[in-house]
């Protein structure tokens, strides 16, 4: 823990008073050096929920007091070939919350107003936090899987997503883990805990893998 100055929102940034911040596996990859260090010292954390306390001179999207979330994608250049093609996630100039810029393991965080999300009222602060990475990235993985109604989806090494009960457009779900702990946490129903040599009784149409082991 360290005392650092409260960041000042510049330009179109908003200053967010942090109410909750999720702990993600990526935070561990960063602090343990498995991902190349991009900033030091660094405030980790990229699943940030809080309220806007102050706005930069060019920020007008939200009122002070609005509840918002700050996620992994902190900012992109908006003009590169990827951004122009709707693939801002691939922007070579992108900055990332809690990795290339300070994140939410703090009392305050700043982010461009265009890159923060209104949080649905139905979620508490702490319930909303894990949605901002485990949820969003899981959702993108689901989209990229192109799963169709009636398809069967397998999950491997689902990390922070482990306790979720997936149902999506009538798809069948098979959760696969080599970890007995994860199996217990996620519930035994429809969970398959194999050794590397085992095969399940059913084949799957698509798989979503967040396991760290290749």
């Amino acid at each position, binding site marked *: 823990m360290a005392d650092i100055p409260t960041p000042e929102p510049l330009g179109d940034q908003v200053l967010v008073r942090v109410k909750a911040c999720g702990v993600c596996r990526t935070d561990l990859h960063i602090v343990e050096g498995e991902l190349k260090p991009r900033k030091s010292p660094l405030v980790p954390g990229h699943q940030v929920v809080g309220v806007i306390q102050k706005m930069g001179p060019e920020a007008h999207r939200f009122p002070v007091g609005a509840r918002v979330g700050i996620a992994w994608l902190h900012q992109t250049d908006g003009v590169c070939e990827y951004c122009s093609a709707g693939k801002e996630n691939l922007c070579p100039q992108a900055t990332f919350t809690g990795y290339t810029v300070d994140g939410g393991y703090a009392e305050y965080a700043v982010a461009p107003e265009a890159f923060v999300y209104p949080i*649905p009222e139905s979620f508490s602060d702490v319930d909303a936090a894990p949605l901002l990475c485990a949820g969003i990235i899981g959702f993108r*993985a689901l989209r990229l899987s192109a799963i169709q109604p009636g398809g069967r989806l397998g999950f491997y090494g689902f990390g922070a997503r482990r306790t979720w009960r997936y149902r999506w457009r009538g798809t069948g779900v098979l959760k696969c883990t080599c970890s007995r702990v994860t199996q217990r946490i996620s519930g035994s129903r429809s969970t398959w805990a194999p050794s590397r040599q085992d095969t399940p009784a059913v084949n799957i149409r698509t*798989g979503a893998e967040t396991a760290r082991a290749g």
Partner: protein
Amino acid sequence: MPVALKVLKKGGTLVLAGIHMSTIPAMDYNLLYWERVVRSVANNTRQDGEDFLRVAAEIPIRTKVQTFPLAEANRASTRSRATR
């Protein structure tokens, strides 16, 4: 990855959603043949986030969380590591 490919149907897709992964072991080409697709996920777009939060509220998704004071962030991380 070979474990997942082993049970993937013809034409199926395997999505790798982690930002960091150990080296993928050498494997038999037959695991990939039959037009199986392997693809990674890199970050997200804002559209992903907006769409997901809307869907999450509609379903609604219920999260289970364990909370720690900010001063115990290191313990929270340690706890997360222990459940790998």
